[in-house]
């Protein structure tokens, strides 16, 4: 059983599909990276505030 060689069109369609795949992967990576960075930035003050509160409560007791 033999297949006809790929039309040049298939190459262009493949480039479109792989390109879109790459764009979506990059987008997912960016959103993930942003989440990590943002959580890190906002997380630290929250943790510090929690510790300060805990320390104040302990001192009060």
């Amino acid at each position: 059983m033999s297949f006809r060689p790929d039309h040049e069109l298939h190459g262009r369609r493949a480039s479109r599909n792989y390109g879109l795949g790459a764009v979506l992967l990059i987008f997912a990576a960016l959103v993930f990276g942003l989440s990590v960075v943002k959580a890190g930035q906002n997380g630290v003050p929250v943790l510090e505030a929690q510790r300060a509160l805990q320390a104040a409560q302990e001192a009060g007791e």
Partner: protein
Amino acid sequence: MSDATSIDRDLDAGFGDYFALLKPRVMSLVVFTALVGLVVAPVGVHPFIALVAILCIAVGGGASGALNMWWESDLDAKMLRTRNRPIPAGRVTRDEALAIGLTLSAFSVVMLGLATNFVAAGLLAFTIFFYAVIYTMVLKRRTPQNIVIGGAAGAFPPMVGWAVATGGVSVESLLMFALTFAWTPPHFWALSLFVKGDYGRAGVPMLPEVAGRNVTRWHILGYSVVLAIVSFALGLTSIGGPVYMAVAVVMNALFLRGAWTITQRDDAACDVDKHKAERGLFKLSLFYILLLFGALLVEASLKPFGLGGW
């Protein structure tokens, strides 16, 4: 059978055709000036957030390019320089370009807002609106001053970059805007002096076609003087410094000399040396913007060592 009919569509787009809609060459200037605006700002930005911000600005700029190609496909088909763009060449449909332009505009603005702040996102949205609607749809085919006002769209990116870091607008960012704004007319008019006829064929009222080539030459000199004043004013702000000033003195001297040389020439002289002076000024204008913004980067990178700035 559906496969056979679709193979008949020899002009199906590849990924590169969609990328070309985003005008990658224009994007490179946008990325560079936005990056400078972000780096020279007095507030530090997390490197990953800076990367995302620059990407959003690049994609927003690209989206406005796609909207521009959607609206101008009839013009592009008439001009030699733009005849092979994806829409006039038949590889991408107008509807696809519109959809890509609108989607990427919304995406880039929302992402920039979420990643940084909504002042930066608002400025990016206004930049896209200004380029796609004010310049492309309203001004370009109506007034020979199209380049002057349209230049504002290309001048916003350093302001967006600055807003990403600081969340606001300041004298420095306004002067970075003014520098690119005043640079655009002499840059494009020098080009239009030696790329003859193309815009005329397409019916776009470029200054040389409407007011004449001599008037254009004097306009180039006038804007070069404005450009020099703005560039020195920028050098006196907190982001300027001796390195920037030295570069500004040399580049403005060369630019003004080039602009003056052009005013002393007529069409006959241009034909003899094939627009040597005009081509020279166009090339110089590229170095001008690159070196001045580069000098701002140098000043910013010297600051941690106690150098740079005044």
